[in-house]
């Protein structure tokens, strides 16, 4: 964008009109970024670093919110547990989602569309309803399971499976069949073709899928609320309590920022593992 803008700027006046039009078309985007992303973010930072928590705008800089968080062991433990469960959920979603996406690409075109519609069909139903439905099923089968790691992870896998399947499917569907043929031609068994060609080339889809699952799974409110049986609290619930019940906006903001930074770090790590990033960029 910036590059083409520059080039246009150097050109005749005639094209200046075009450039203006382009700026105007970008306006909604800028507004969204400013009002819905940047502004709330700034407010959050403001809250986190100020000592007022009674709602009046008497702002003094302080780190007390962060101090409070880092001094409270249960909160840190909850944070670690949330990340741990999110990581496990991501792994299990991947284990279910990758083979599923792979087998969908092996179907005929029409069946592929149908299968993708089926996989995403759970998203047509409200998340609260789905969580509630799962809760009732588990209550029916084995109530003692409620609140266990197994059920929390099951809930996450159920909720976020489409987010894993879709990006992996997209990458696998684009995979050139002749690459698989040439791999076989060069002597690779289908297993070797899988490990040496298919998986490396679909890594970018795996990574976006993992991000799409890990982020919401780490901060989810709904899953522990319905499947936690009142005894499981995750970081999302703690933030919710701090803000909605105790009106400790600064405290909630501080936890959010710490969580955000940790997640950012995880994203960075994930991105690092995608060594073929450049390759796929070129292909697109």
């Amino acid at each position, binding site marked *: 964008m910036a590059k083409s803008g520059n080039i246009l700027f150097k050109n005749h006046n005639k094209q200046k009109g075009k450039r203006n039009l382009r700026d105007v078309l970008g306006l909604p985007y800028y507004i969204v970024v400013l009002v819905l992303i940047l502004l709330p973010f700034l407010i959050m930072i403001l809250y986190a670093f100020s000592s007022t928590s009674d709602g009046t705008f008497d702002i003094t800089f302080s780190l007390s919110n962060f101090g409070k968080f880092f001094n409270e062991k249960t909160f840190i433990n909850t944070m670690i547990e949330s990340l741990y469960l999110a990581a496990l959920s991501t792994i299990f979603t991947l284990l279910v989602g990758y083979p599923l996406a792979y087998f969908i690409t092996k179907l005929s075109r029409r069946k592929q569309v149908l299968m993708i519609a089926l996989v995403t069909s759970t998203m047509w139903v409200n998340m609260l309803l789905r969580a509630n439905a799962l809760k009732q099923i588990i209550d029916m089968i084995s109530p003692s399971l409620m609140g266990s790691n197994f059920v929390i992870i099951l809930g996450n896998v159920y909720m976020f499976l489409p987010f894993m399947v879709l990006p992996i499917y997209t990458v696998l569907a684009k995979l*050139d069949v*002749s*690459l698989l*043929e*040439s*791999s*076989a*031609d*060069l*002597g*690779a*068994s289908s297993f*070797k073709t899988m490990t*040496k*060609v298919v998986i*490396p*080339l679909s890594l970018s889809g795996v990574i976006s899928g993992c991000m799409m699952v890990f982020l919401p799974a780490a901060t989810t409110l709904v899953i522990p609320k319905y499947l936690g049986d009142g005894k499981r609290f995750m970081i999302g619930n703690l933030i919710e309590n701090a803000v909605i019940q105790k009106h400790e906006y600064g405290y909630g903001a501080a936890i959010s920022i710490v969580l955000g930074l940790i997640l950012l770090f995880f994203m960075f790590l994930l991105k690092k593992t995608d060594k*073929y990033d*450049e*390759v*796929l960029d*070129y*292909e697109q």
Partner: protein
Amino acid sequence: MAALIELKDVTKEFNGQVVLRGIDLVIEQNEFVTLLGPSGCGKTTTLRIIGGFIDPTSGEVLFDGKDILSVPSHKRPTNTVFQRYALFPHLDVYENVAFGLRVKGANIEQSKAISQLKKEYQETIKKMKNEVKQAKLELRSKGFDKEAYKEEIYKIDGDLYKKIEEVYNEKQEKIHHIKQTNLNKKDFEQLVNNKVTKYLKMVGLEGYERRSVSKLSGGQQQRVAIARALINEPKVLLLDEPLAALDLKLRQEMQYELKELQRSAGITFIFVTHDQEEALTMSDKIVVMNHGEIQQIGTPEDIYNEPINTFVAKFIGESNIIPGIMKDDLLVSFDGVDYVCVDKGFAKNEKVDIVIRPEDIDIVPLGKGILSGVVDSVAFKGVHYEIDVITKDRTFTIHTTDYQKEGTKVDIVFGPEDLHVMEEW
């Protein structure tokens, strides 16, 4: 020369549509065979059947006399250069070329030998046990008394165990011996490095080892694809229009290099193309195909000079095709005039087609040729002019280096050896 690959009555249908019909083809060792035909003629399908990417609906594919249809593509002694190269985008040039070696692993020969030994061992044991069984049966029929019988059995069994132990030890020792020749990781890397360097050198890509394949030009990508296929030392290299994406100059260069490679490496090449010039330049044997059937098999000269039907004549170069009648051996008639020709073996008064290549017709001054006509059009083609001359009965297309003005009255001339008589098609 021995037949390396044999296709027997190979037929392929896709959804009830026949794309190959009764293909019979023999390919010999060290041959450069070209499958030539317009798109959709089944030439690529034939290649893919040999490579093992699709199965024929019926028919046999023999390799060294053995049926290979049940052999999956990754176990066939063929390697393929794909039309769009199909290089692995996530690997650099070096790793692309090394791929074949790596998937086979360091000690393929050894593990093959070991599994062979184990098989032999199992068979020997089985044979020995059978012999013992037989011996016991014979013993029973000899009618020993109980004690003596038991003793004999005991002796036989003892012998058997001793023998089994011997064979087992022998086998273990052999396996141990083979395992000692196993390469460790470092040696294998060295071997891979040597081979990759050798083949990159062969295709002229030294110094490109760590380049990403997406940053190579079409010609370079094609060379990588060839090196990658050759490193497995296949007996047959299958090439699916590998030069189609290259510009003319590069294509001619690669044609020459491929031919050189085929000669020096002693590999059978099966080459698919729709470019007749390419086929004529490179091949030892051309297989002309159309509508899923083989039209003609022969050397480039045969195909060009003696096309078997009008399709081949039209597809291989330009030609004037004239319907006529074979009056007798060495005598053909068209447009009401008899001409002496060099063909024979047709029935008397059989309807035939006569092919005259445009470069075989000469334009001479009025009154000095066989037929008179008027120059209708002149087109400059680089090396030659393409001139259409309208005579009383038809238009002749002529290739000549001499310019003629449009509207000039001229004569044309051709000799008996320029008339190629074919069965009517």
